[in-house]
């Protein structure tokens, strides 16, 4: 069992979420950076979808009331086990009773702590993910919470000593595909989107990355009927400032989507920090 001593700015339990129920208004949710999340599980021999802890800007401290193997991926938050520094992107052994502490990552936003056996809090609709939009799943972690760890019998052996940490550039370039509603915007708007620097707003969260920069001008007035939204959609509300939808995004929305991130760029978007700048490229 793992006891939460302090969760840092925001810590939640996440797995691969609740796909397949969007027509009932259920957001997919799940790890915002699925790439880092899956890697953390592989490093400790878990199935890729075992529930893990998603930390936001590190800062957490967890007491392990039983020895365990862990791996930390995503934003490289400085990791200490009973006071001694450990590398991220590598399996690490935690002795019984040890305190695991995280500093603030020098780059990136979200770190994943996978535990061999997985975190086995109660499932809601087939998932242990905390969905901050709909409130489904376990609440964000708070001091004193106890997280049960699943059995490790029958899991794959731990075979990797260290995995390469992904490069997190200062000013990432995110690839997009225009549409499905790029025809709602002027040609200049598309040129603006792909040629200027946008800045991540502090209002960003697991629902979406809100951006500051030049507004995108619409080519037509009127109301688009509500339609299904994908993760990675760049939805443009009346302010003209796009929002990149992340894991907890609403299932339907009535503002036009000017472009959608390449699937491979969603993990990069989930690591954007408030104040960081980025570019879009078709």
């Amino acid at each position, binding site marked *: 069992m793992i006891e939460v001593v302090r969760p840092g700015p925001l810590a939640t339990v996440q797995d691969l979420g609740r796909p397949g129920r969007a027509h009932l208004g259920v957001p997919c949710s799940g790890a915002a950076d699925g790439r880092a999340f899956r890697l953390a599980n592989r490093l400790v021999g878990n199935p890729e979808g075992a529930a893990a802890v998603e930390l936001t800007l590190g800062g957490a401290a967890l007491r392990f009331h039983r020895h365990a193997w862990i791996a930390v991926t995503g934003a490289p938050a400085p990791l200490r086990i009973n006071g001694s520094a450990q590398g991220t992107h590598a399996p690490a052994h935690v002795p019984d009773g040890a305190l695991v502490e995280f500093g603030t990552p020098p780059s990136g936003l979200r770190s994943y702590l996978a535990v061999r056996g997985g975190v086995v809090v109660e499932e809601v609709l087939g998932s242990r993910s905390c969905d901050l939009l709909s409130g489904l799943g376990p609440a964000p972690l708070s001091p004193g919470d106890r997280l049960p760890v699943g059995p490790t019998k029958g899991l794959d052996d731990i075979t990797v000593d260290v995995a390469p940490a992904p490069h997190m550039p200062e000013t990432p370039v995110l690839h997009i595909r225009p549409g499905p509603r790029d025809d709602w915007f002027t040609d200049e708007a598309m040129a603006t989107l792909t040629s200027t620097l946008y800045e991540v707003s502090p209002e960003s969260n697991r629902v979406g990355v809100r951006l500051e920069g030049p507004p995108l001008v619409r080519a037509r007035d009127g109301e688009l009927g509500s339609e299904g939204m*994908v993760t990675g959609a760049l939805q443009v509300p009346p302010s003209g400032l796009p929002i990149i939808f992340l894991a907890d995004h609403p299932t339907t929305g009535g503002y036009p989507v000017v472009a959608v991130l390449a699937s491979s760029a969603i993990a990069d978007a989930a690591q954007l920090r408030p104040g960081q700048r980025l570019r879009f490229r078709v």
Partner: protein
Amino acid sequence: MKVVRAGDAALLVEAADLATAHRLNAALRDEPLPGVVDVVPGERTVLVVAEPAADLGRLAERLTRLRLPDDAGGDAEPVEIPVTYDGADLDEVADLTGLSRGEVVRRHRAATYTVAYLGFSPGFGYLTGLDPALRVARRASPRTSVPAGSVAIADRYAAVYPSASPGGWRLLGRSELRLWDVTRDPPSLLRPGMRVRFVPRESP
């Protein structure tokens, strides 16, 4: 039907109208296509979300060749939602529409509605079929908490709040029917294409 891409792992199908969107949704639920993760009806569209490595060109072809059912389950008996008409905004809606309280209730319960699509919160269905005389704007400032079961209208839609949430719709009454229950499969009583009627209950 026009099929456009929504990124590299989803297609947005533009249907002629809501009924066609519901027929496409019904076809995709009766016989799911391989590699499809989510099918999400909207007002005139159906979003088809595929697995990351799916061949979208091939999926688009299959979608346009699908044989749609004549009717998307609209011939089934409507779901009946019992309502106690004692909502906090009844007088306001009467004022805004120029109708009496009784006439607002009569028109609300007289209609047969269709679940157009879900969104806003799990189990929250946007119901079309509202009497045009009841068309009122949302409240200027939303309530911070609307109780679960609140029966409400706004713009062209009627709805029942499936769980407590903030909300700006005008409240006409309340229902004790559970619209959302995570222990039920499916957890939502309302699904796209279903028909709905409101049945008045006597106030206690």
